[in-house]
C-alpha cells in the first residue's frame, strides 16, 4: 500500500500530471493519424523530456505509447482503416457492427476492453516486477551478459527471413555504440580526432533520425491521400456499453494473459498478440462463424490483448534494463538521458520512479478513456490529413528536437545522417530497430562481458558453469540454432 501511495504521489506532481495528459491526448491523435506510429512520435518527442523530471518524461512517452493503441481502434471501427497494425483484428468485427448502426457499441466495447487490458497489465507489472527484480538483482556479470545476448537474438529472430540482416544491423548498432572514450581503459575508439565523438554518438539524435526523419521522408514522398473511405457515423460512446466486455470474462482474461505475456517477449509486438487472442476467442467460441461479421467478442479479444502489451513490454526494461522493442528502447533513452540506470537496482535506488511508472500506466488508461468519450466523433476526421503534410511537420519538429539535444548543429547532422541511413534501410527492407537496440544495450553488454571475462580470467566456461547463466546460455543456443537449421534446410 505504501508503494501504491508513493506512485500516486509521484504522478500527482503538476508537471508529471500535465505530461501524462499531454502524452495521452497526443497518443490518441497519433493512433488515428495516417502513417505515424508511436515509435516515430516518441523518437521525435524524446528531446522534450530533457527539460523535465524523469517521471514526467517517461509519462509523456508512455502516454503516447498507450494512447496510440486506443486511437487505432477508432479508425478501425469507423472507417475500416486501422491506425496501427495491431488494430487490424478490431476492424474485422468493429466495421460490420458500425455498418449495421452499432458504431457506439463497438467503440464502447473496444475502449472498455482496452481499458481492462491496460489496467490489468499495469497491475500485473506492478505485482510481478518487484519479485522478478529481486531475482535479477542476484544476477552476476555472466547472467547479465547472457540475458542481453538472449534479448538480442530474440529480437533478430522476430525478423524471420531477415534474420541475417537483423543481426547485421544489431552488430552495427553495437559497433557504432562503442565510439568514444572507453570508460575502462581510457582509450579512444573510432573518434577520428573529433572532439564531439569522444563522448560517443548521441542516442537521441540517432533515434530521431532512424525513426522520425526516415519515416517523415517516406511520408512526404508517398502518394498522399487516396479516395476518402466511407465513414460510419458515431456519436459519443455509451457508459453502459463500456461495461459490456465484462460479459465475456473468459475471453477478456485469456486475451489479457496473451497480450501481457507477448508484451514481455522482445520484438514480437502487439499485432501478433491481437491475432493470437482473436483466433483463440474464435476457436473457443460456440459461434465461430460469427467472427468477422460483427461479433462483439472479437473486439473484446483484440483490444484487450492489444492494450495489455504495454505492461509486459516495460517488464524487461524495469527488471533487466533490456528493452524489447523500438518504443521501449527509446523510452529507455529517457532513463539514460537523466543518468538513471534501468534494471534491478532501480527498485532500491529510485522507488518513487518505478512505482510512479506503474501508477502512470493506470492513470494514462483512465485519461485516454475519458478523452475518447468526449472526442471520438472529432477523431475520425483526422484521418483526412494528408500524410505529406505530416511528413513536413515531423521533419521540422525533428530538426528542432535534434538541435536541442546539444544546443548545436552536431545533433542535427547526426540525426540527418541517421535519417538517410534509415531511409536507405527502409528502401532495402533492412530493419533498423535492431540497430537502435544495439546502441541502447551496447554499453551494458560490453561492461558485463568484460567483467564476466575478468572474473573467469578470460574463460568462456563462466557462461555454462553458473546455473542461471547456463540456462540462459542454453536458451540462447536453442534460439540461435533453430533458425540456422531452418535456413540450412532451405538451401
Amino acid at each position, binding site marked *: 500500500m505504501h508503494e501504491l501511495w508513493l506512485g500516486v504521489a509521484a504522478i500527482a506532481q503538476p508537471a508529471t500530471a500535465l505530461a501524462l495528459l499531454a502524452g495521452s491526448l497526443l497518443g490518441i491523435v497519433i493512433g488515428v493519424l495516417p502513417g505515424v506510429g508511436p515509435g516515430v512520435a516518441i523518437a521525435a518527442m524524446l528531446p522534450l523530456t530533457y527539460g523535465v523530471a524523469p517521471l514526467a518524461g517517461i509519462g509523456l512517452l508512455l502516454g503516447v505509447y498507450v494512447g496510440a493503441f486506443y486511437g487505432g481502434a477508432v479508425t478501425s471501427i469507423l472507417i475500416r482503416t486501422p491506425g496501427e497494425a495491431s488494430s487490424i483484428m478490431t476492424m474485422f468485427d468493429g466495421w460490420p457492427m458500425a455498418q449495421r448502426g452499432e458504431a457506439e457499441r463497438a467503440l464502447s466495447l473496444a475502449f472498455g476492453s482496452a481499458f481492462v487490458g491496460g489496467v490489468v497489465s499495469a497491475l500485473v507489472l506492478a505485482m510481478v516486477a518487484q519479485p522478478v527484480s529481486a531475482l535479477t538483482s542476484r544476477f552476476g556479470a555472466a547472467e547479465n551478459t547472457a540475458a542481453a545476448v538472449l534479448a538480442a537474438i530474440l529480437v533478430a529472430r522476430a525478423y524471420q527471413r531477415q534474420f541475417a540482416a537483423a543481426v547485421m544491423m544489431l552488430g552495427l548498432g553495437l559497433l557504432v555504440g562503442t565510439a568514444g572514450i572507453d570508460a575502462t581503459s581510457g582509450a579512444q575508439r573510432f573518434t577520428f580526432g573529433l572532439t564531439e565523438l569522444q563522448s560517443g554518438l548521441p542516442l537521441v539524435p540517432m533515434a530521431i533520425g532512424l525513426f522520425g526523419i526516415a519515416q517523415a521522408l517516406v511520408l512526404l514522398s508517398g502518394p498522399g491521400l487516396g479516395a476518402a473511405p466511407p465513414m460510419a457515423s458515431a456519436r459519443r460512446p455509451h457508459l453502459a456499453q463500456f461495461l459490456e466486455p465484462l460479459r465475456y470474462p473468459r475471453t477478456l482474461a485469456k486475451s489479457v494473459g496473451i497480450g501481457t505475456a507477448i508484451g514481455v517477449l522482445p520484438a514480437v509486438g502487439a499485432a501478433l498478440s491481437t491475432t493470437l487472442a482473436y483466433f483463440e476467442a474464435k476457436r473457443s467460441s460456440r459461434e465461430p462463424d460469427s467472427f468477422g461479421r460483427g461479433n462483439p467478442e472479437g473486439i473484446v479479444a483484440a483490444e484487450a490483448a492489444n492494450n495489455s502489451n504495454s505492461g509486459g513490454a516495460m517488464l524487461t526494461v524495469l527488471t533487466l534494463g533490456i528493452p524489447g522493442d523500438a518504443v521501449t528502447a527509446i523510452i529507455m533513452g529517457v532513463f539514460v538521458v537523466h543518468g538513471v540506470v534501468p534494471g534491478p537496482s532501480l527498485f532500491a535506488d529510485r522507488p518513487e520512479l518505478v512505482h510512479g511508472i506503474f501508477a502512470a500506466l493506470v492513470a494514462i488508461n483512465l485519461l485516454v478513456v475519458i478523452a475518447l468519450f468526449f472526442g471520438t466523433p472529432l477523431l475520425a476526421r483526422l484521418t483526412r490529413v494528408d500524410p505529406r503534410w505530416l511528413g513536413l*511537420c515531423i521533419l521540422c519538429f525533428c530538426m528542432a528536437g535534434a538541435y536541442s539535444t546539444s544546443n548545436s548543429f552536431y545533433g542535427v547532422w547526426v540525426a540527418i545522417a541517421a535519417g538517410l541511413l534509415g531511409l536507405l534501410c527502409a528502401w532495402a527492407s533492412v530493419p533498423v530497430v535492431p540497430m537502435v537496440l544495439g546502441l541502447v544495450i551496447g554499453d551494458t553488454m560490453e561492461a558485463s562481458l568484460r567483467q564476466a571475462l575478468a572474473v573467469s580470467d578470460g574463460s568462456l566456461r563462466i557462461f555454462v558453469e553458473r546455473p542461471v547463466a547456463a540456462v540462459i546460455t542454453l536458451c540462447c543456443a536453442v534460439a540461435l540454432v533453430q533458425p540456422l537449421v531452418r535456413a540450412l534446410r532451405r538451401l
Partner: protein
Amino acid sequence: MTGVTLHDAARPTHTNVVQPAAPDVPAARPRTGQVARTVLLAAVLAGCALLALRLPATPPGEPWHGSPAMFPALALVLAAGCALAVVWQRLRRPAPAAGPTAADDVPDDEVDATDSDPRRAGLGALLLLLYPAAITAVGFAPATLVFVIAGTRVCGLPWRRGLVVGGVLAATLHAVFVGLFHVGLPAPLILAWLGR
C-alpha cells in the same frame, strides 16, 4: 466478409488503408530496393573494413578480454559476417519479383517505404541538408517557413497552404523549444550582415 483467417491480418500500407488478403503481392519498386540493398551492404562492408583498421591497440600486458578492442572487434565480426551472409543469400536467391516480400517479415515498428517515390524522397533529403544552412543564415522561424513552402513544391502540395502551415509550425516550434524549454537557437547571420 465471411469469417476471418490468419491471412487477413495483412500489413497496412503507410497510408493505413488495409489491403485485402493478397497471397501474391508484387514487390513494389523492386529496382529501388535492389539498388538500396546493394548500396547499404557495400557501405556496411566498407565501413567495417575502415573501422577494422582503426581498432584501438591492446595496451601492453593487458589480457585479450581487457582490451578496448575486444567488444568492437566482436561487433565488427558480427556486422561484417552477417553482411556477407546477406550478400551470399542474395547471390544464391535473388529477391523475387512477385510473392511475399522481405518487408512482410518486418515487425510493425519498422518504416514501410513501399509507396515511397525515390525522386521525391531524394529532393526531400536535399532540402533537409539545406535546412541547417538556412537556419544559420536567416534564423529558425524564417528557415522553417521557407523549408515548408519548398517542401510543398517537392511533394506536390498547394504552396499557399504551406505558407499558413509553415507559419503556424514555425511559431509553435519556436514557442515550445525557445519559450518553454529555453533552447538557445543560433543568432541568424543575416543580422550580422545587416550590421545589427
